[in-house]
C-alpha cells in the first residue's frame, strides 16, 4: 500500500519534471538548429554582414561557386545593416509613442474613470491587443499610412530644423509606406500591451498607500505621480520591454507598411525601409529557389540576429530592473 503510494509519488514527480523541461528543450533545439543552418552563411558573409547595405542573392541559374568551403550562387553578397537598423529604428519610434500614451491611458483608467467605464476601457484594450497583425498592416498600408503622409508628415518635415540628426526628419514625405507609418502602426500595436500591464500593476498599489498620500493633502494626480507610479516603476519597465519584444519581432504588419526595400537604408524619417522579420517573410519564397541553399542559410543567420537582439533586450531589461529594485520596491519587480 505504502509502496504503491511512493511509486505514484515518484511517477508524478518524474512526469512534472519532464513537462517542465519542455520549454528549455524547445529553446535549445531552436538555437541549435538555427546555428547549424546559419553556419555556412556566417562563414561566407563574415563581419561584412553587419556593415554593408547590399542585398544581392547572386545568379541562381549560373553554376554554384565554392568559397571557404561554402557553396553559393556567383555574385552573392548579403549585408544586413539596413535591416538591423530598420528593426531598431521602427521599434524605437513605436516605444517613444506607445510608452507615454500607454502609461497615461493606464493611469486614466485606474484613477479617473468610473468603475463601469474603466472596465469597458479595459475590455477594449484587450480587444485591441488581440487584433491580428495582418489587420493592423492592412489598415496601416491602406488608410493610416497615406493619411499620415498627406496630413502629418509634411507638417513635421516643414518644421524640423536643418541640424544634424534632426535633418533626418526633413525631405520628401513619400506616399505612406515607410519608417514613420511603420513606427506609428507598431506603436498602436504595442500600446494595449503596455497600457493593460501598467493598469494591472497600478491596481496592485495598496489602497492604504494611495490613501496615505491623499490624506496628506496631495491631489489625485500628485498621489499617482509620487506614490502610485513609483510603486510600479520596475513593473512598467517590464511592460515596456514586453512591448519592445513584440515590436522587434513584429512581421506581417511591417512587411505591409514598411515598403520592404532591400539593399538601402532609409534616407529620411518617411522613407521606405525594411526590418529583419519583414525581410525573412518577404524573401522566403525566392530564397527557396536558391539551388545551393545559401539564401536559406542567410535567412537562418538573420533569424539568429533577431533572436540575439531580442534576448539582449530582455537581459538588459533584467539588469536595469535589478539595479532599480535595489530600493526594494514591493511589487512589480519581475519582467
Amino acid at each position, binding site marked *: 500500500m505504502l509502496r504503491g503510494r511512493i511509486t505514484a509519488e515518484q511517477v508524478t514527480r518524474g512526469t512534472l519534471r519532464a513537462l517542465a523541461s519542455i520549454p528549455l528543450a524547445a529553446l535549445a533545439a531552436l538555437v541549435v538548429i538555427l546555428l547549424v543552418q546559419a553556419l555556412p552563411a556566417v562563414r561566407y558573409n563574415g563581419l561584412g554582414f553587419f556593415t554593408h547595405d547590399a542585398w544581392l542573392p547572386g545568379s541562381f541559374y549560373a553554376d554554384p561557386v565554392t568559397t571557404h568551403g561554402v557553396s553559393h550562387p556567383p555574385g552573392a553578397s548579403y549585408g544586413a545593416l539596413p535591416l538591423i537598423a530598420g528593426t531598431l529604428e521602427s521599434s524605437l519610434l513605436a516605444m517613444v509613442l506607445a510608452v507615454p500614451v500607454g502609461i497615461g491611458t493606464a493611469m486614466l483608467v485606474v484613477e479617473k474613470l468610473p468603475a463601469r467605464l474603466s472596465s469597458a476601457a479595459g475590455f477594449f484594450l484587450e480587444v485591441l491587443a488581440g487584433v491580428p497583425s495582418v489587420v493592423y498592416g492592412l489598415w496601416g498600408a491602406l488608410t493610416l499610412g497615406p493619411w499620415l503622409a498627406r496630413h502629418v508628415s509634411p507638417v513635421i518635415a516643414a518644421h524640423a530644423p536643418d541640424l544634424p540628426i534632426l535633418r533626418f526628419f526633413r525631405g520628401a514625405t513619400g506616399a505612406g509606406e515607410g519608417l514613420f507609418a511603420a513606427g506609428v502602426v507598431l506603436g498602436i500595436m504595442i500600446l494595449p500591451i503596455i497600457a493593460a500591464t501598467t493598469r494591472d500593476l497600478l491596481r496592485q498599489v495598496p489602497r492604504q498607500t494611495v490613501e*496615505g498620500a491623499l490624506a496628506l493633502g496631495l491631489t489625485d494626480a500628485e498621489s499617482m505621480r509620487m506614490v502610485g507610479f513609483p510603486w510600479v516603476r520596475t513593473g512598467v519597465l517590464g511592460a515596456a520591454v514586453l512591448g519592445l519584444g513584440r515590436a522587434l519581432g513584429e512581421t506581417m504588419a511591417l512587411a505591409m507598411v514598411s515598403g520592404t526595400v532591400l539593399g538601402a537604408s532609409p534616407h529620411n524619417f518617411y522613407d521606405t525601409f525594411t526590418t529583419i522579420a519583414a525581410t525573412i517573410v518577404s524573401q522566403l519564397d525566392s530564397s527557396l529557389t536558391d539551388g545551393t541553399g545559401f539564401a536559406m542559410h542567410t535567412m537562418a543567420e538573420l533569424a539568429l540576429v533577431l533572436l540575439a537582439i531580442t534576448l539582449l533586450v530582455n537581459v538588459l531589461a533584467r539588469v536595469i530592473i535589478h539595479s532599480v529594485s535595489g530600493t526594494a520596491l514591493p511589487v512589480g519587480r519581475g519582467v
Partner: protein
Amino acid sequence: MTHSLAAARTDGGNSRRAGAQIPGSRSRHPDLLSPASTRAGVAAAPPALPPVLKTRDATMGFGLKTVLSSVTLEFRRGTINAIIGPTGCGKSTLLRAFNRMNDRSPTFWRRGSVEFEGCDVSAGTPDPLELRRRVGMVFQRPNPFPMSIRDNVVAGVRAHRLAPRRELAAVAERHLRQVGLWDAVADRLDDSPFRLSGGQQQLLCLARALAVEPDVLLLDEPTSSLDPATTEIVEALLRTLTPRLTLVLVTHNLAQAGRVAGTTAFLYDGRLVEAGETRQILAAPREPETVSYVTGRIG
C-alpha cells in the same frame, strides 16, 4: 436617539454652541470632554475655546447602508480623544468624515454637520487639500511611500510647498527627531523605507503626518500592527504632541484609551452610546452597552 457627549457645558463660553444642539444632556456631568478643566475645577478653566472638531446629528453611510446615526460629538483643542467600539461600529467612518476621506467612495452620503474649526468640512473652506493638511491622518498599517526615507518625511511639505527646497533636509531631520527615529535612520536617509521594521515605518508615517504642521491628527488604530514595546513608544510620543495638536484616536484597545486619552467616546452599532472622561467611561460607565463592552461581554 441622539446621545450627547459633549453634554451640557456649564462654562458660559460654550453654551452658545452647545445649548441648542444637544438633547438629553446630562447637567450633572459638566464638561465631560475637558478633563483638564474638570480636574482644575470649572471655575479655573481657561476661557472655553470652540471645539476644533465637531459633529452635530451626523448621520452617514454608503449606498443603502447607514453606518452612523445622529452622532453629536466634539473635540476640544489640545486634547487626546479616543473612539472605542467593536469592529463595524462606525469608528473609522466617523474618523474619516473629519478629513473627508469617505468622499472618495462614490456611494458615501452624510446628513447633519461635521465641522472643523466651526466650518462644515464640506463647505469648501478650507478646500479639501488644505483640510487634509490641517487634519492629518495615520493609518492602521504603516504605509510608507516608495521613495527614500527623507523624501517620505517631506512628501507633504513638498506638495504643499511649505518650505523651500534647501530647507527640506532640515525639516526632515526635525520631524525624524520629533518621533525619535533620527538616530536609527540618520545614516540611511536615502534608503528605502521598506527595510525598516514595522514600528519604525509607523513612526516614519507619523513624522510624515507631522511634517505638514497639522492642527489635528486622526489616528486609525495606529498601533494595532505593532508589538507592545513599539506601542509604548508611539503612545509616549502621542502624549508629547498635545497641547499643540488635537488627537482623535480610534482604538480597539481599551487599555490604550485609558493610557493616553483624556476623553473617550463609545460607539456601538452606529450609535454614540456614551462619551466623557476616559476614567469615567472605563471605570464607571453609565450605559448598559458600555458596561458590557468595557467588561468584555460584547465586542
